[in-house]
C-alpha cells in the first residue's frame, strides 16, 4: 500500500508541475489550474489509502466543514475583494500547519524520541505557520479596510520588539529541543510567533500589502515543506517547496516593480515622515476641476486615448462602464488602449483580471514598459482611480518616499483627466504632483457614476 501511495504521489507531483506550467500562459491557465486541482485530489486520496488510517468520522467532519466554508467563500467573493481572499486562504493554510505541529507535539509527548531534524522541522513549521496565519489576517484586515491601511508601529521600539518576540519563540523551541516536554513550551512558541506575525505586518503600509501577501504565501509553502519533512511525507515536501520557491520569485518581482527591497518593506519603511514631506510644498498650488461634458468633448476629438486604471476603478466596480466608454470612443474612431502598471490595484495583474471580466480585449492591455513611450503621442490620458503609480514625484523629486519607483508617464500626455473621489492621498499616503499639473483636470466623483455621465455626454456630442 505504501508503494501505491508513493506511486500516486508521483502522479500528483507531475500534475502539480504540469498544472503550474499551464498557469504561465493565458491560453493554458484554466486547464493548468484544473490539472493542479486534480493532482491535489489524487494526493488526498493517496493519503487516505494509507494502511491503518482511522478516525474517519472526524476526517470527514473536518473536510466537510472546510468544503462548506470554502466553496461559498470562493464563489461569492467579488472580483475587487480577490486580493484579501487570497490573503485569507493563505492564512488558514499557515494556521493548519501550526495546528498540526501542536497536535503532533501532543501526540508524541513533546517530540520524545523523535530525530533531531524532525523536531527542528516541526518547530520551524510551528513558528512560520503561526506567523503566516496572523500576518495574513492583518493583511486581510488592511486590504478589507477593517484595520487602518496606514502603518501602525511602535516607532523606534519596533525592531527590538520584533527581535524579542522572535527570540522568545526560538527560546521556547530550543527548550523543547533540549528535551523539555512541557506543553506550555509549544504554546509559548505559538503565542510568540502569533504576536510576531501581528506586529510585523501592522507597521507595513497598505501599499506594500500585495508584497506582504506574496511573502506570506511563500512562507506558508516553506512551512508546509517543513511539516512534510517532519512527517516524512514526500507530497508535502514537494508541493510546499515548489510554492516556497515560486512565491519567493513572485515576491521579488513585485518588490522590484515598486523599487523596494523586501527587507525595507518588512522593516516598515513607509513611516510617518511621508506625510510631513508631502504637505510641506503643496500650499499654494491649485487644482482644476472639470465636468463630464468637457471630458466627453475632449475625448471625442482626440486621436489617441490611454486609460490608466487603478484601485479606484476596482472599488467603484467601474470596469464595465469603462469598457463601454472605450467602445463608444472606438466607434468614433478614437484609438483606445489601457496602461497597466505592474502594481496597480492591490496585486500584480489585479487590473487585468477586472478588465478581462469586463470583456476588454486582451491585446488592448499594455504593460508599463510597452506603453510609457506612447504617452507623449497621446491626446488624453484618462486616469480612473489610480494614484501613486502615476505620481511624477517618483521620477523628479528625490525627497519623495516613492522616488525611484517605476511609474506610468501619464504626465507626458497632452492632457490628463483624473477621475477621483476626492483629493485624498493614495494608498502610500503621498500627495500626487500630477494633480497640480496645469494640463491636468480633475473629475471628482465615484468612478462608475462619472464614467456613466461621460458616456451620456459622449452620446450627445
Amino acid at each position: 500500500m505504501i508503494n501505491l501511495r508513493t506511486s500516486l504521489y508521483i502522479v500528483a507531483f507531475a500534475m502539480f508541475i504540469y498544472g503550474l506550467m499551464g498557469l504561465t500562459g493565458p491560453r493554458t491557465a484554466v486547464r493548468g489550474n484544473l490539472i493542479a486541482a486534480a493532482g491535489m485530489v489524487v494526493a488526498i486520496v493517496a493519503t487516505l489509502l494509507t494502511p491503518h488510517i482511522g478516525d474517519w468520522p472526524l476526517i470527514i467532519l473536518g473536510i466537510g466543514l472546510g468544503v462548506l466554508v470554502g466553496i461559498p467563500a470562493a464563489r461569492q467573493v467579488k472580483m475587487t475583494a480577490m486580493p484579501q481572499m487570497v490573503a485569507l486562504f493563505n492564512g488558514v493554510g499557515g494556521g493548519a500547519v501550526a495546528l498540526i505541529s501542536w497536535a503532533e507535539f501532543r501526540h508524541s509527548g513533546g517530540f520524545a524520541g523523535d530525530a533531531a531534524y524532525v523536531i527542528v522541522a516541526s518547530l520551524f513549521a510551528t513558528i512560520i505557520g503561526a506567523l503566516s496565519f496572523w500576518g495574513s489576517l492583518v493583511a486581510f484586515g488592511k486590504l478589507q479596510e477593517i484595520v487602518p491601511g496606514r502603518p501602525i508601529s511602535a516607532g523606534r521600539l519596533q525592531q527590538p520588539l520584533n527581535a524579542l518576540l522572535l527570540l522568545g519563540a526560538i527560546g521556547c523551541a530550543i527548550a523543547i529541543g533540549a528535551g523539555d516536554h512541557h506543553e506550555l513550551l509549544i504554546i509559548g512558541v505559538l503565542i510568540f510567533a502569533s504576536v510576531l506575525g501581528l506586529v510585523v505586518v501592522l507597521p507595513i503600509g497598505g501599499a506594500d500589502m500585495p508584497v506582504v501577501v506574496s511573502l506570506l504565501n511563500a512562507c506558508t509553502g516553506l512551512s508546509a515543506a517543513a511539516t512534510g519533512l517532519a512527517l516524512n511525507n514526500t507530497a508535502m515536501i514537494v508541493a510546499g517547496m515548489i510554492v516556497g520557491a515560486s512565491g519567493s520569485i513572485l515576491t521579488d518581482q513585485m518588490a522590484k516593480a515598486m523599487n523596494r527591497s523586501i527587507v525595507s518593506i518588512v522593516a516598515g519603511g513607509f513611516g510617518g515622515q511621508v506625510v510631513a514631506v508631502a504637505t510641506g510644498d503643496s500650499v499654494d498650488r491649485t487644482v482644476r476641476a472639470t465636468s463630464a461634458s468637457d471630458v466627453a468633448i475632449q475625448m471625442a476629438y482626440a486621436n489617441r486615448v490611454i486609460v490608466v486604471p487603478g484601485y479606484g476603478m476596482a472599488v467603484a466596480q467601474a470596469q464595465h462602464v469603462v469598457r463601454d466608454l472605450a467602445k463608444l470612443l472606438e466607434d468614433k474612431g478614437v484609438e483606445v488602449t489601457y496602461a497597466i502598471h505592474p502594481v496597480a490595484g492591490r496585486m500584480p495583474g489585479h487590473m487585468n483580471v477586472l478588465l478581462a471580466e469586463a470583456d476588454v480585449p486582451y491585446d488592448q492591455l499594455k504593460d508599463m514598459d510597452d506603453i510609457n513611450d506612447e504617452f507623449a503621442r497621446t491626446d488624453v490620458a484618462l486616469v480612473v482611480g489610480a494614484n501613486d503609480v502615476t505620481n511624477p514625484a517618483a521620477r523628479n523629486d528625490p525627497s519623495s518616499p516613492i522616488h525611484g519607483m517605476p511609474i506610468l508617464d501619464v504626465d507626458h500626455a497632452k492632457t490628463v483627466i483624473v477621475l477621483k473621489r476626492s483629493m485624498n492621498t493614495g494608498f502610500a499616503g503621498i500627495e500626487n504632483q500630477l494633480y497640480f499639473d496645469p494640463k491636468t483636470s480633475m473629475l471628482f466623483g465615484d468612478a462608475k457614476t462619472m464614467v456613466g455621465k461621460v458616456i451620456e455626454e459622449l452620446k450627445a456630442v
Partner: protein
Amino acid sequence: MLLQNLAILVLAGFIGFAVISKVPNTLHTPLMSGTNAIHGIVLLGGLIVLGAGVHGVLSKVILVIAIMFGTINVVGGFLVTDRMLGMFKRKPAERSQGEQ
C-alpha cells in the same frame, strides 16, 4: 531518509524557480492564488496525524480545525483561481469570432 527527503526538497525548489520565472505579469494574481491553493497540501499532514489515532479531545479538535483550514485553503484557492482565469479564457474565442 533525511538525506533523501532533503534531495527531494532541493530539487522541488529548483522546479519551483524554473517553472515560475516564465510567467507574464498579467497572470501574477491568478498564479499567486494557484500556488496558494497548492500549499493547501498541508491538509495531508492533518489527515496523517489524525488518522494515526491521536488521543484526547483537545488534540482531535485541533486536528479537525487543521483539516478544515487545509480544506478551505485547497477548495477556496482552486475555485478562486478558476474564477479569475475564467475571465481570460473567453478572450481568444471572442477575438477569433470577431475576425471571422
